[in-house]
């Protein structure tokens, strides 16, 4: 029983990322305290380079490596791309924020790089053990990042809350996994799939329900969502962006793989369950977003509601629009939500406030930023020609073609509701008078991040074809 060498090539991106993290760690030791952004730029370069091996694997034949513990398929590759790209953008946005806020600037870049590795693991884990490990990998770094501003009470609170909630949820999930192991005698998802057909029902449901708690926490699915607003509000804004996008995306990757590979063959009616959760999640998220005044809390609830939309894609995953629908939505959501958070970073940094009314007159003070924020808000609402529209289009299509028309209707109603609070931001920026005429300038790194996010949002909205093509291969989830 020896390891085939090509298995190492299959994890080349992970090796690169792990190595990058170590290199950065060492580099950080030699960089003077006031020049820590060098570490950040190094991380960006390294992460960008990691895209080379990742993209190189796009057309890979789906298989498992490392004795069935790790999957190599387009699906995983796609989520690795999401992880790396969002990490790059978050680092770009964080560079300005960190300066002066903490002496551990370099370590944050290291942590983010490792977190990208953890996310890659999550997306590709084909074994319960690996899955637990990777989820914890991401969680541990996230707890730390949420509490990164140690002098900020809100950040402390966010860290504690996030930790307690996350640790409890993973304990529950691990307990569920242990039952799943007991029912099938396997830890490999593909092995479980074989054995699960005959698994007795009540215990299986216990296992699935417990497992959903852990993953539901990661994706902020109702009823495991309650940490979201507090943590987003308290955590440093770039970290909140990261949590809302990268870790949520990876959570969905893990959820889909678990459900589609391991649970789908069983007798559990998981489609209805997920559809129900989807409806509840998007509705509750939306309704709670309505009265928010803090942009980060608003975005937190909005991200809960988007989790509901993504769950719609999960519920309809087996239809021919389901898989690409979910993926394109993730892609669209990544760029859009990051963009929205980046604007929040900028405003929070320059105006010192996260309250939406303080966005008043931004259209005059920072016309381009305001314009981009409009694009992001419209995209989150799902209005063409933005990526968000295309995502919703696809995901509604998935629901309609998957016989979940009722869910699509719920989604449509929720889209309308969401318009109200998204437009609230636009209203503040454009309709309210500016309290001062002083321009709000954006630092270079953040501008780059904003530009990429906006470009992604608009390009996917207007010329989605290349992305759809990409998803054609990415949707190849290794199944039995």
């Amino acid at each position, binding site marked *: 029983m020896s390891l085939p060498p090509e298995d190492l090539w299959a994890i080349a991106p992970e090796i690169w990322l792990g190595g990058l993290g170590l290199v950065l760690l060492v580099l950080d030791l030699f960089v003077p305290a006031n020049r820590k952004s060098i570490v950040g730029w190094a991380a960006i370069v390294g992460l960008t380079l990691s895209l080379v091996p990742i993209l190189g694997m796009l057309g890979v034949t789906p298989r498992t490596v490392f004795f069935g513990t790790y999957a190599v398929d387009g699906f995983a590759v796609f989520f690795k791309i999401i992880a790396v790209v969002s990490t790059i953008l978050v680092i770009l946005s964080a560079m300005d924020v960190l300066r002066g806020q903490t002496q551990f600037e370099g370590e944050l870049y290291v942590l983010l790089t490792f977190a990208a590795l953890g996310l890659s693991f999550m997306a590709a884990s084909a074994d319960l*053990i690996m899955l*637990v490990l990777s989820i914890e990998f991401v969680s541990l770094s996230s707890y730390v990042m949420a509490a990164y501003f140690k002098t900020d009470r809100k950040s402390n609170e966010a860290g504690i809350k996030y*930790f307690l909630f996350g640790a409890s949820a993973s304990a529950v999930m691990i307990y569920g996994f242990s039952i799943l*192991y007991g029912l099938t005698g396997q830890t490999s998802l593909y092995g479980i799939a074989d054995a699960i057909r005959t698994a007795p029902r009540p215990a299986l449901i216990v296992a699935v329900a417990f497992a959903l708690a852990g993953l539901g926490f990661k994706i902020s699915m109702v009823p495991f969502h309650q940490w979201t607003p*507090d943590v987003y509000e308290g955590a440093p804004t770039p970290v909140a962006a990261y949590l809302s996008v990268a870790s949520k995306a990876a959570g969905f990757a893990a959820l889909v793989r678990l459900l589609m590979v391991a649970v789908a063959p069983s007798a559990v009616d998981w489609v209805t369950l997920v559809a129900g959760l989807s409806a509840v999640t998007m509705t509750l998220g939306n309704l709670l977003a309505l009265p928010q005044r803090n942009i980060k809390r608003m975005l937190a609830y909005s991200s809960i509601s988007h989790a509901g939309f993504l769950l719609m894609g999960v519920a309809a995953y087996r239809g021919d629009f389901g898989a690409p629908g979910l993926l394109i939505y993730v892609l669209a959501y990544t760029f859009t939500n990051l963009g929205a958070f980046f604007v929040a970073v900028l405003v929070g940094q320059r105006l010192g406030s996260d309250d939406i009314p303080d966005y008043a007159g931004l259209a005059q003070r920072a016309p381009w930023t305001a314009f981009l924020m409009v694009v992001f808000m419209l995209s989150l609402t799902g209005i063409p020609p933005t990526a968000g529209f295309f995502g919703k289009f696809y995901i509604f299509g998935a629901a309609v073609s998957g016989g979940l028309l009722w869910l699509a209707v719920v989604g449509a109603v929720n889209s309308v509701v969401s318009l109200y609070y998204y437009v609230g931001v636009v209203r503040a920026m454009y309709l309210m008078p500016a309290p001062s005429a002083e321009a709000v300038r954006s630092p270079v790194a953040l501008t780059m991040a904003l530009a990429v996010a906006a470009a992604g949002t608009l390009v996917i909205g207007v010329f989605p074809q290349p992305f759809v093509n990409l998803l054609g291969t990415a949707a190849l989830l290794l199944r039995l």
Partner: protein
Amino acid sequence: MQLGLVHFLILSALLFCLGLYAVLTRRNAVAILMGIELMLNAANINLVAFNKYVAPAALNGHVFALIVITLAACEAGVGLALVLSAYRNLETVHVDEINVMKW
């Protein structure tokens, strides 16, 4: 009566729920962490027991349990660091007092 799988499972279930109870009711963040450790231990009992009774051919359960122990240690380390950090700033470790943000 022979010692069987079910006995271990009952033990684990009880332990798990004790841990859950702690998580739900203790005010001290450290105590909650202890509850979480109990829950993880319960899962480990399951894993080891299942490995013996259900899938003795491979030792995946043992490996799983070892990984969980490792992770528990990591969580404890990070978690306690968070508690310390929060304590410095907020001067409390009682989670019901860590309550700046709501709604």
